């Protein structure tokens, strides 16, 4: 049995996360070759959607996990420890609207309130509260870019890596909210009861990252 159960996000962060596990001498070949299987007990790896990682780690179903800061910010009530900024998977949480005259500013001037579509309702609501603007948050599950194009909202809050999808849909970034990168998180009880194993993992990731940057 491995010392630690590790929650690994499928999707954009998967490949670089598996590279980190290779640095830790964890055998990732089966995870890489089988994209339907979810639980890899021999190597202590469970794979899931990035947004589920905090849930599993909080409950102790996994001891540590890899996920994006965007997920942790949206689920800030989740009781997990954030141990390390891993630096990969950089994305920016942005406020975007259609190009041309800013419809969000116009809505705020005329109506006093902006309608905003997002998959990150808590992040968006916090941001508008912090910046002192009234916003009506519309939660959508699919492509957020569609919402301002159809007149559902004036603006969107979404995560963008390269900005390509925004550009192709005629949207421009108006404000940058925060930069998100991959983070290592831990269950608070495992952090105490498996202190040595977790500290060793953190140290090896730190050292390996320093070596990678030095190259």
């Amino acid at each position, binding site marked *: 049995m491995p010392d630690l159960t590790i929650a690994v996000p499928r999707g954009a962060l998967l490949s670089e996360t598996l590279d980190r596990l290779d640095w830790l001498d964890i055998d990732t070949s089966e995870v890489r070759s089988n994209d339907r299987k979810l639980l890899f007990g021999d190597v202590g790896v469970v794979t899931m959607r990035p947004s589920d990682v905090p849930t599993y780690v909080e409950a102790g179903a996994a001891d540590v996990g890899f996920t994006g800061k965007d997920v942790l910010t949206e689920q800030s009530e989740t*009781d997990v420890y954030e141990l390390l900024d891993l630096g990969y998977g950089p994305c920016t949480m942005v406020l975007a609207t259609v190009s041309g005259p800013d419809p969000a500013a116009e809505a705020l001037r005329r109506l006093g309130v902006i309608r905003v579509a997002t998959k990150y309702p808590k992040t968006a609501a916090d941001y508008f509260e912090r910046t002192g603007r009234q916003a009506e948050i519309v939660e959508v599950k699919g492509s957020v870019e569609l919402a301002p194009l159809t007149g559902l909202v004036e603006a969107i809050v979404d995560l963008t890596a390269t900005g390509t999808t925004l550009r192709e849909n005629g949207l421009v970034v108006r404000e940058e909210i925060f930069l998100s990168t991959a983070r290592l998180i831990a269950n608070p009880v495992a*952090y105490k009861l498996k202190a040595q194993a977790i*500290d060793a993992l953190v140290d090896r990731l730190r050292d390996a990252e320093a070596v990678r940057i030095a190259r």
Partner: protein
Amino acid sequence: MAILPIPSGTRDILPDEMRELSSIVGALKGVFADAGFGEITTPALEYEEVLSRADIGARPAYRVVDDHGAVLVLRSDMTVPIARVVATRYATSDPPLRFCYVAPVYRAVRPHRGMSREFLQAGIELVGLPSAEGTAEALTVLCRALEATGLREFRIGLGDAALFPRLLDQAGVDGPARGRVMRELATGDFVGMERELSVLRIDDAHASLLLRVARLRGGPEVLEEIGDAIGDAADGLLRLYERLAPEVARRLVIDLGLARDLGYYTGAVFEVYDPGLGTPLGGGGRYDDLLGRFGRSLPAVGFALRIDDLHQALTARNGHA
């Protein structure tokens, strides 16, 4: 058949489970009584203006207005009501005073998080014994109580709530920045703490000490390793260790970054962990300033265990989960 709902975060307990819970409660009560703690009960409903004298801790979440227009709240813990009892009913009694309880408490829940609005707590409050002596007695009773329920592999994380604030004083961190650093500590966000400290431009020695203390955990040897840099706190914890029997000391994990979310702790703080459960199943600590707010200034220490969590940890161990 109609479904007649009960509020989320509340539940009915049926005979099979109730039998198991009762046996846990019986084991705990036996240990508390043997150690000389007298069981007390206080009303679930109290005047808001009386309980709010505590001004800290879990804020009561449920209020009702009574037939005279007074605002009543459902207690959110037993520590604050017992502080009231000590200051009023025992205003002239010679300390130390020893109380125990098994009682439901009521907390706010956030949606879809599986939290309880109402849950049973069992605990003790030891009033009027100074620092190391009182804390050692409370930890000893805690270990015996957990062992009496049949829990085998539990550990107790032990920290000092006064340590991190004092280190921040020494580093000259105050104002809003101090609040932000304490919040990062309480939520276990070490990435955020590193960022906050780097923005503050305090000298490297202070910054690295704060980060090291926040992450430091292990046996008493970690105190020797860092002792000189944290002074009194290390001495206090070592003095506490000296008072503990080996079977209690071996359960402890020093955790200098431990910060409990209830605001009333002033010294030693502790949390109970079991490998069968992803969250702490209880905790406690010293609250030397709380009783003064109710009119009788005495040092105190106590702990509370969540019976449901204890039950779950025991069930996980027996492979029933």
